[in-house]
């Protein structure tokens, strides 16, 4: 019984020791553990797998995936970062730039501004196509000139009073429809995601007049195309108290963990510690610094429970995830197709 519990722990938990981490790698492959059925069973996976969406806001999506392995969870994370397409400024046509910001620096900054445009409405631009058509390009214009405020007080030194339009924000970018885009997207509101991104500072007489072409791209090509600020995951923490911890030790234990993790209950007049919500803990390992407590607690993580967090970008994040999952499917399909339709040709062997 104890042996089975130990094996279960090896299979299900990543244990955080004082100086190292144990049972890190996935070991539940067929043949490793006698008596366990580890071969891939689709039905067993589908029964055990579940997704819980914890929080879905404008700037962040937090969800749990339970019953999946690190290899696949990581594949989703990598695809979210690098292979989900978005629209971003690629070409900047500078008609006039008398500001202090150099042309190429300005163009670089404009490229990094996230654009509120559904990439599924656009095609990828063909290789070598310089002009851009209405099906693959979104055009924006930034035309702004700074001037002096004649009504400003004589002694004032506040630029907000002295000048008009001295700060160029992303809200000054306006959409210029190409071709038949006004008909194709009658209700569309293409603009940068945030209105308050400062692009440049101007002084009277300086002017910026640029035209920008946005194209569809993926993060692998350039980080500006990445739809998420970041996508990350962590494993669900699992804190076990190996013995009852009471009174002063209980209070010290509560201070060792993040607030809300350890709860102190009053049982028959004694204060007893209880793990209330291990999920909140950030595992600072503070408990290992206390000689009296370090052997009474086991810190571990549940190996197949992933708390995933995607932040930034305007797109309803769920659709990003769905896109990334579809991409994962497509990529394995693309690899399968040549194999399945194979005439795998064998060439005569030749020495290297």
């Amino acid at each position: 019984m104890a042996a089975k519990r130990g094996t279960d722990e090896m299979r299900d938990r990543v244990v955080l020791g004082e100086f190292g981490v144990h049972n890190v790698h996935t070991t539940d492959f067929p043949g490793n553990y006698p008596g366990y059925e580890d071969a891939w069973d689709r039905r067993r996976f589908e029964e055990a797998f579940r997704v819980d969406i914890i929080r879905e806001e404008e700037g962040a999506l937090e969800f749990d995936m339970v019953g999946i392995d690190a290899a696949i969870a990581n594949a989703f994370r990598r695809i979210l970062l690098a292979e989900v397409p978005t629209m971003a400024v690629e070409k900047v046509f500078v008609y006039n730039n008398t500001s202090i910001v150099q042309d190429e620096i300005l163009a670089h900054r404009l490229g990094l501004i996230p654009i509120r445009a559904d990439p599924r409405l656009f095609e990828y631009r063909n290789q070598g196509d310089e002009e851009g058509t209405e099906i693959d390009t979104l055009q924006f214009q930034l035309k702004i000139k700074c001037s002096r405020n004649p009504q400003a007080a004589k002694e004032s030194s506040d630029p907000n009073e002295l000048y008009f339009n001295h700060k160029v924000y992303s809200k000054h970018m306006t959409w210029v429809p190409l071709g038949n885009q006004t008909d194709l997207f009658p209700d569309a509101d293409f603009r940068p995601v945030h209105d308050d991104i400062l692009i440049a500072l101007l002084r009277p007489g300086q002017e910026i007049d640029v035209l920008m072409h946005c194209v569809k791209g993926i993060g692998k090509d350039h980080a500006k195309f990445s739809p998420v600020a970041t996508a990350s995951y962590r494993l669900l923490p699992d804190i076990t108290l190996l013995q009852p911890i009471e009174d002063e030790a209980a209070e010290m234990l509560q201070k060792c963990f993040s607030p809300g993790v350890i709860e102190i209950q009053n049982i028959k007049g004694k204060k007893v510690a209880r793990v209330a919500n291990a999920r909140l803990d950030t595992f600072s390992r503070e408990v290992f610094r206390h000689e009296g407590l370090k052997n009474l607690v086991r810190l571990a993580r549940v190996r197949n429970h992933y708390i995933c967090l995607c932040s930034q970008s305007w797109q309803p994040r769920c659709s990003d995830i769905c896109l990334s999952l579809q991409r994962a499917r497509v990529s394995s399909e693309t690899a399968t197709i040549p194999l399945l339709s194979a005439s795998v040709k064998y060439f005569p062997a030749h020495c290297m």
Partner: protein
Amino acid sequence: MLGVVVGAAMAEEGERKAALETVQADGTDGNCVTFVLHDEDHTLGNSLRYMVMKNPDVEFCGYCITHPSESKINFRIQTRGGLPAVEPFRKGLNDLMGVCQHVLNTFEQHSREDKPKPVSPVTGRQAELSHCLPWLRPAGCLVCTQK
């Protein structure tokens, strides 16, 4: 030198480079094959390795990225019992497709349902869930035994 038999499966006829090549040493009968996948990296490599390792007929499965500047992986499969290595490769790809499809379905299903109630930061509905589900209950856990 080792004679090597190289097979290539084209993604499209003509100009497109092969997406997949196989390399197999002379004298073996298809048990151990290295698949060279172009334009791929850890994203497909690691997840496919996991799915192929879950196959009981596979004796060895591993992948490596030959050079970080080239986006190409060498994916090697060795089977036991005379099964051609292409079979677990094919099965692994199909299984991976199945996993992604199921995760996609589950996700879409959840995003269509009502928004879940917020989790209380102190008592935490999630914590209770993870302690009470049988396959997640840790051994010797005082939370569960103290009901």
